[in-house]
């Protein structure tokens, strides 16, 4: 259901922006679509490798290794380990959030889980290499990851201070 809504929004905005381009100038539309199509052709081999290969990477990294250090009394060391674990987690959103949910249920501290989920969202290595670098200039991607490093620590600090979630 949600994927259907996301698909509708995605194709809807594509048609909307396409209409704006068509109103400006029809050649703008064709040039833009051709450039987008070329990007697609360039990116497909890498996406194929990533998506088709990620299942194997996920299968050999056991989640117990990843959530091992997220206990409630681990403090800032636990937060740091969560950040590393988030960056090292392979696979798609199901894997990342499931590990977070398992960690919460098995008694991990919430600041550590917040740090894990945020770090995973920001710089899970597999997504960075397979999705972000194919689409964007590599120098931007590495810079973006480097300046995002404090963010999961900040999020964990806010979670510690507020006692939420």
């Amino acid at each position, binding site marked *: 259901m949600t994927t259907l809504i996301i698909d509708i929004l995605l194709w809807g905005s594509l048609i909307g922006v396409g209409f704006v381009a068509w109103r400006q*100038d029809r050649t703008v539309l064709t*040039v833009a679509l051709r450039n987008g199509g070329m990007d697609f052709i360039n990116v*497909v081999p890498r996406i194929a490798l990533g998506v088709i*290969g990620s299942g194997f990477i996920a299968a050999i990294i056991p989640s117990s290794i990843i959530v091992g250090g997220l206990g409630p009394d681990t403090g800032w060391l636990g937060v740091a380990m969560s950040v590393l674990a988030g960056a090292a987690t392979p696979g798609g*959103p199901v894997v990342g959030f499931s590990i977070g949910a398992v960690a919460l249920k098995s008694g991990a501290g919430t600041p550590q889980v917040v740090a894990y989920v945020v770090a995973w969202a920001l710089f899970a290595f597999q997504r960075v290499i397979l999705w972000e670098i194919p689409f964007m200039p590599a120098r931007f991607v590495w810079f973006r990851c480097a300046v995002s490093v404090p963010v999961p620590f900040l999020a964990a600090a806010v979670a510690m201070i507020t006692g*939420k*979630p």
Partner: protein
Amino acid sequence: MSVPDAKTEPAEERDDVEAGPPRKGKPFGWSTFIIAVLVAVSAALVWRRDGFDAVWAILFHDVSLFGEIMPRVLAGCLLGGLIAAVLPHDKVSKSLGPDSGLKGLLIGTAFGAILPGGPFTAYPVASALLAVGADFGATIAMVVSWTMIGYGRAVAWEMPIMGPDFTLWRILISLPMPVLAGAFGRFVYIRVRHRFGL
């Protein structure tokens, strides 16, 4: 906007800011090679541990997943191409460029939060913004906002798996982060860009 503008302006801008390396990697660059090796080793380990059937099951699952997301990747690439063509270069540089201040970071954040779709939309669109004059700071705010407060992943995956309580608090905590990351990025960028050839 005339056609030559739409096509050449971003390209010229790219050549100005960047000496040498291509804007996007080749279809098979070094990162693809590393991943290919990683995938091959992982597949071999799965095969040794669980046998051929397990390898086949994972492969079948991932190939069908790939078939499912391909149309969305195409939509994302086309959206990126269209946004790069439609957005006026001068206005983007003004409202998302290096001198756009807090407002530029907030616009980037809002844009990332409302952008529909997954990585197949966010990264092509962010790349398009960079090409038409947004600076690193505003683009970082956009990408971080998409990852941390974008509704797509939160509604589709985080809510069902982590529960609404955790998800809503996590998003609330995340609200200021895109602006902070973007501001920090801008602060660092102007100090290191010459040293690292960024």
